[in-house]
């Protein structure tokens, strides 16, 4: 009997060993406001990639916002505190998502002129010759006959939309005979990086170093992966590329993947960036969850210039890619039906 009991115990042992999931994964974390705040602050301290670059004293930020946390505060109150703390990063890629709202750093765009009027572009340029106007996937394009020269105008407003190779071929076929091309990405808030790369590759026949990229790899402020050189590589067939003069129109709303497009285009000698500095957003964001189930994201990567400055350091593009030619949209001309940025781009292309 004792032997039977002994063996029975032996056989039941695995149930106790294996059946206890808490033994392996532990308990759910505390969800109170204090626990959520501490976890959020710590995650940013350990993983955000621009604390040093932005000269942020994150401990000081803790001193500012920690006293605002009190037991029993409701979700909206907690959200407002966390939102304010996150906005100290001044980063469009820093967002806190809850079921009832989400946060974003709006001064990034609102502190500068819009420099963009979609209706003006559609009415006065794209539809100037309706027979020449096409909407090919996410790209709207036309060819403008200006003083006997052919200027291609392409607009791409959303990099979350991906054109097929055949669609890109069609667009580039129409651009190829042009004397110059205006690529208008104002207001393009980003999306898939691959779309920016494949588009930039349609404007070069050889690979050119565009920038360096690296990711956060540890808790220390200097712990990053090795620098990886990024090139603007040709895409598509040779007969479906345009290597003539190009003006890229950008504004502060050109963000994230669109800033990467600006970097890729900037590496090409026949390309001029025009307009305002892009919104930046060159730190690849990661996503994660807080102890109470809310989601958030912030930058964990860095894009650095291909060249070094006089001190031997790389430029950091987080605050945006500056234009070669700074131009704002003239509101007076806009009321007269002219987009001063497109007009300036045409002058640049007609008088290289």
């Amino acid at each position, binding site marked *: 009997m004792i032997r*039977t009991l002994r*063996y*029975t115990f*032996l*056989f*039941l*042992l*695995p*149930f106790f*060993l*294996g*059946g206890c*999931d808490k033994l*392996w*994964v*532990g*308990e*759910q*974390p505390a*969800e109170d406001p204090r626990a959520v705040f501490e*976890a959020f602050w710590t995650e940013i301290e350990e*993983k955000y990639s621009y604390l040093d670059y932005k000269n942020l004293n994150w401990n000081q930020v803790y001193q500012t916002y920690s006293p605002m946390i009190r037991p029993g505060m409701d979700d909206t109150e907690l959200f407002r505190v966390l939102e304010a703390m996150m906005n100290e990063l001044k980063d469009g890629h820093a967002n806190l*998502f*809850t*079921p009832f709202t989400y946060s974003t750093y709006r001064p990034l765009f609102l502190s500068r002129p819009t420099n963009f009027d979609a209706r003006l572009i559609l009415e006065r340029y794209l539809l100037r010759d309706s027979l020449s106007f096409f909407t090919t996937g996410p790209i709207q394009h036309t060819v403008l006959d200006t003083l006997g020269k052919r200027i291609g105008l392409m607009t791409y407003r959303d990099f979350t939309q991906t054109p097929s190779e055949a669609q890109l071929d069609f667009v580039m076929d129409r651009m190829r005979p042009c004397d110059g091309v205006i690529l208008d990405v104002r207001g393009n808030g980003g999306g898939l*990086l*691959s779309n920016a*790369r494949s588009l930039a590759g349609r404007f070069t026949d050889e690979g050119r170093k*565009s920038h360096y*990229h*690296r*990711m*956060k*790899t*540890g*808790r220390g402020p200097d*712990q990053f*992966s090795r620098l*990886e*050189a*990024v090139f603007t*590589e040709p895409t598509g067939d040779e007969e479906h590329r345009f290597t003539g003069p190009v003006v890229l129109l950008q504004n502060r709303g050109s963000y994230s993947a669109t800033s*990467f497009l600006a970097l890729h285009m900037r590496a090409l000698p026949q390309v001029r960036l025009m307009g305002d500095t892009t919104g930046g957003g*060159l730190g*690849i*964001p*990661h*996503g*994660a*969850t*807080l*102890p*109470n*189930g*809310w*989601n958030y*994201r912030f930058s*964990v*990567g860095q*894009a650095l210039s291909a060249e070094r400055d006089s001190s031997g350091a790389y430029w950091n593009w987080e605050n945006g890619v500056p234009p070669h030619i700074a131009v704002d949209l003239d509101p007076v001309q806009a009321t007269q039906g002219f987009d001063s940025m497109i007009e300036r781009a045409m002058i640049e292309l007609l008088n290289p």
Partner: protein
Amino acid sequence: MKPCHISAQLAAFLQNSVRSSIVTLFTLCLMRVPAQAQSFDISLKKTELQKKGANHHLIGGWGLGVAAYRERITSPRIYRGLQAELGAAYERQGQKSIASYDSWMGMGGFTDEAEGWNANFSGAFWLRSHLAYMFRLPMPEGRWSLHAGPSGQFYSMLRLQPTHGNASATHDFSMNGGLRARIEYALPSRSGETKRWFIFRIRESHLRYIRLGWEVDLGLLGLQSRPPYTGVPNVGGANAVAGALNEWVDHLRLAGLGQFTYLNNQLYIRYPLRNGNSLRVGLNSMGYRWSLRDQPVAVWIQTLNMGYQFRLDNHKDLR
């Protein structure tokens, strides 16, 4: 009732059902042992298995169960859910050793059980395989057998959570060397079979063995891969595939017991059929934990699996 609570309750119900049913079945089997043991003078030392040489088995099966994981790179919360598995195994049973290989692939749906509308959902896929060569160890009693020996273990898991953007897919694997031990009890069972003789049908009794076993795999040393520190491969690089590969290599580590824990244990019953094949029911629990602070992960998977074990050899007289 909210979906996450339903899922959690279903998981708990299934877990409790599995546990209680197996324990009950096992207890019933134990209660029958003395009576049947008196009917047959058996000893594993004298079984036909030892006389005939090696047996080869091929096992196919499926399983249902519960799983839980915690991936701190993307969330401090524990995800729990239901899961299903498919698997195959091969086993060569010799007189003094057992060589075996098994591989199970599974998938599951999970929730982090956060309160109300804060709950998040995810999906996961995994593969776990074991390769072992065990030697028969001496046991005092004939109906018990104990095997132990070196084993290789492979575990890999891919977790998907669309709300995490660039970190929506995190992946890790563990390739270990370790030990496996198996203790098995052969429960004698009378089995009836009728044969035609002239115009009569004659019932013949055969001695069969219901086998109850417990098998444990423990990882001792292994190559462990972890997702990047932020859960995001270097997608900003020109070649995302090469970047991801570099990241993966960067996060590959050789680790020993203590830095990680891998434990797979299975309690099973193998019931012989008339045709020489067997039915196999097992309760498998796998736990994996990578303990270093930067990128901890913990996974626990428990499955009630059912399999059909084919005899590949021609020792049809062996029951």
